[in-house]
């Protein structure tokens, strides 16, 4: 189960989505994190906690993408979040 730490607000400015750390989270994470449109869907699921397979389901349900590609994209997304220190 993967879950995003609390203390972020997702915003859209222009065509760009981003996650902005707020409150106490700003002590740990400086700056804002880019999100694509599909990234926002995954982020939203991860706010409540989600398994990798469930995240891949979200991509295949919302986009015309093969299962293997969806799973690869989810893995890359989770790796990215891990690197930014965003996951619990």
């Amino acid at each position, binding site marked *: 189960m993967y879950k995003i730490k609390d203390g972020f607000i997702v915003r859209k400015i222009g065509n760009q989505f981003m996650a902005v750390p707020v409150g106490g989270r700003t002590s740990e994470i400086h700056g804002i994190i880019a999100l694509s449109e599909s990234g926002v869907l995954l982020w939203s699921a991860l706010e409540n906690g989600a398994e990798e397979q469930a995240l891949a389901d979200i991509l295949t349900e919302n986009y015309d993408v093969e299962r293997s590609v969806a799973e690869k994209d989810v893995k890359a997304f989770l790796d990215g979040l891990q690197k*930014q220190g965003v996951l619990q």
Partner: protein
Amino acid sequence: MIDCQRFGDDFFDAISGWARVNKIPLNTTFELTPFCNFSCVMCYIRLNKETAKKQGEMLTAEQWLQIARQAKDAGTLHLTLTGGEPLAHPDFWEIYAELNKMGFLIYLLSNGSLIDEQAMDKFRLYGMPHMVKLTVYGASDETYQRVCGSADGFTRVSRAIDLLKAAGVPVKLTSTIVKENACDLQQIYAFAREKGLSMQHTISVHKSSRGSLNTAETSRFEFADFPEEITLEALEKSKFPNQQSPFAWCASRGKNLVVTWHGHFQLCTMLSEPYVQYSGDFLSDFHKLDNLLDEIKSPEECQGCEWKEFCQRCPGILCSESGHPEKTDKAFCLMAKRLQDLYIRKKEETQL
């Protein structure tokens, strides 16, 4: 843009361009208060209570938060808190705590004197600012007394820098150099190096159209005061090309907004006219202001002025100097003349 990257300069440049074209207030400044615990000789914002009372009522904390919520909906990402001294606002922490929940990148412009251990505890509790920009007025408490009327200002700003750096908050230093602190210029840069920070000073000081009693005219330097330091090349580069619009060189237009302590929407802190009084509808007021700015014309005297290539003007500066963005001020005009005279002299020297 790839997911999960931290946004860098290229993103901010791109979004800035988009905001300017689409007239989105990406960068909003809250001038929380006209009051300050310092009394700097060159300040064009600071008011005493009597003058402030004549100009209007200070916004309440709830009004600030209402404006902030609407600013966020309108697309503000960068929110700058300034004053006067923002931490001197009696409700600063109440306002700051709520702003930190909204999803802004918060910048603090401060003299640093009120950033102590208790303030840092509150930053840790409510959220760290994205960046703190501190103005350094000298390299000693004596200079701070002379420039700002603060007996221990330098000691306090030095402490503030150490506390912010220890907490991992990015700090930028600036300094406004006037005759009262010019003797400290080299030490100010040495101080910045000692703290491991960059420093950028300015000599740009203007009169106040906002009722502040500063000593700009007697305290400030002009570029022409430094004939040996300014090269002909620098003077060539500083020439103002002929501009059709008074805002041709304005980086703020279309994407920046200042909300003053009494609810005036302005383009910048110097351009106090035109303004729109906050009506309760942030985006509508921002667009109304933009329409008013479209109507500003350059002063007629500037059209055929023989010194205009060396005139460091913009509507905000003209407003500060003359009281109105469409009027000039003779003393300000003569600064351009002196700079042109310097340019001519240097050009003649190279031809000898």
